[in-house]
């Protein structure tokens, strides 16, 4: 079991991985406060 979610932090990187791995993207907007 992984220890953490392996978050991408920019949309371009996420889209590139999504196309290569043929997976959908979970885009999570958060408030740091």
């Amino acid at each position, binding site marked *: 079991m992984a220890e953490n979610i392996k*978050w991408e932090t920019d949309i371009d990187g996420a889209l590139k991985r999504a196309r290569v791995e043929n*997976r*959908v993207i979970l885009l999570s907007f958060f408030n740091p406060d």
Partner: protein
Amino acid sequence: MDAVTYPDGKVISFINDNMIPLQVQFDIQPLSTDFNVKWTPTLITLDTEGKEHHRTVGFLAPEELIPSLLLGMGKSYLETDRFDKALTKLEKLLAEYPKSDSVPEAIYWRGVCRYKATDDPKPLKEAYEQLKAEHTSSEWTKRAYPYRLL
């Protein structure tokens, strides 16, 4: 989400094994404007071209997040005409998370998916009948109401 749901072991495994997770601050541009984000947490399922297919706003516990993500994946595949993959995700949701709040919507979209895959309207009526029997007060039962006539 960061305190309770995202640290959950099943959630971590599900997301890492099935999706590309992207987390950004709510006000980052241009994403915040492009996706019209007004509140957090906002979770959106995107296809490989960056198009939105499913959105939730507000906290989801681990036992609700995974079926919600399965629903998002199912809708993403359905709306890009990959009906077999969509059905796989929706069936997994219904089999493994039968008590989830996502179930009525999944029943609805499974009916739509079966119809679009076969051109046979019978699955739409079956979806309505199942919704009426098992989820009488759901908004998805109301949305499927016209299918009783098929």
